[in-house]
């Protein structure tokens, strides 16, 4: 963290909170949604994360990567909520894909939409850790170091899980392509 940013957090007021921390809300929301499957629950978790960050703003100068820290809090709160709701694991997201484009015919749009639904199912069927890692890497574009920090895993575990996740996705995509499954 740069010296200037550390200074800003040390004396964080509402304005710097709104300009620096709140913009991460969509990443936190999508990550919470990955666990909870419900937009309302995910929104509640993100609000709780921000309240915790605000209350702990004096300690933020000691944190190397505050966004990864926020993501970690999101993960922990989401898992707590999953446990307290006695949900089996995570609820699959009910996703809708808008693939309408000028260049595509209605038939092509439907075909792509169906493919995306199948990909969504493939990713939802991955083990919890692999699903989290593929989300953080392929959707949010985090570095391996950041993923290690968010999930509190070592580099080797992150790389192995990402490799396994992508291998599973590839195998299932190949089947889909070959047999239209």
């Amino acid at each position, binding site marked *: 963290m740069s010296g200037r940013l550390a200074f800003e957090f040390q004396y964080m007021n509402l304005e710097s909170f709104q300009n620096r921390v709140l913009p991460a809300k969509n990443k936190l929301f999508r990550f919470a949604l990955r666990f909870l499957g419900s937009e309302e629950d995910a929104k509640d978790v993100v609000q709780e994360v921000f309240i915790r960050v605000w209350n702990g703003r004096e300690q933020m100068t000691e944190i190397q990567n505050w966004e990864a820290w926020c993501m970690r809090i999101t993960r922990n709160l989401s898992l707590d909520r999953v446990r307290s709701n006695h949900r089996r694991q995570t609820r699959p997201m009910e996703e809708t894909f808008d693939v309408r484009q000028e260049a595509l015919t209605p038939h092509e749009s439907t075909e792509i939409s169906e493919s995306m639904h199948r990909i969504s199912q493939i*990713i939802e069927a991955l083990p919890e850790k692999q699903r989290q890692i593929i989300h953080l890497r392929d959707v949010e574009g985090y570095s391996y170091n950041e993923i290690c920090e968010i999930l509190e895993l070592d580099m080797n575990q992150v790389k192995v899980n990402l490799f396994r996740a992508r291998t599973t996705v590839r195998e299932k995509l190949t089947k889909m392509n070959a047999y239209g499954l």
Partner: protein
Amino acid sequence: MDSNKIEALLQKYWEAETSQEEEQQLREWFRNHQAPEPWKETAAMFRYFDDTKKKSLDDASFNATVVSNLPTAEAGRIRKLVYNTLRIAAGVSVLCLATWFVHTEMQESADPEVVDTYSDPKLAFEETKKALLLISQSFGKAEKQARKINMFNEAQEEIKKEKPSQEQKL
């Protein structure tokens, strides 16, 4: 970028060996090109990632809700003050309780003579006289009883002396 390079990048991607920049190149390529038939499902996968990233919260209303729920600095200060006061009060209570216990314990184990000291010397003298008189009366009674026991002992001794002389006569 030609399709051979994309194919090589894809191979690296599946083996989880691509860098962030290379993955960005792949995303860009699939976003801007019509993928050939064998990569149709891969293209759909990158589109799925892009589409998932579009999910977002309603900016204005969400920010307003978050800000309105944040504890104000004043409330935070008050909470801190109450917390610190409670901590000090708890400490003082423990100290008072400990002092009280120690004091009670010391009183119970103290010598009764020290506890029952009279502050008035005359009263103390009278009380002492009374106590000594009581003791002397008790001594008198004890002496009487002891004299009776002594008489009994003497009688016993006399009987013992007379017994051997009678046996000799017989």
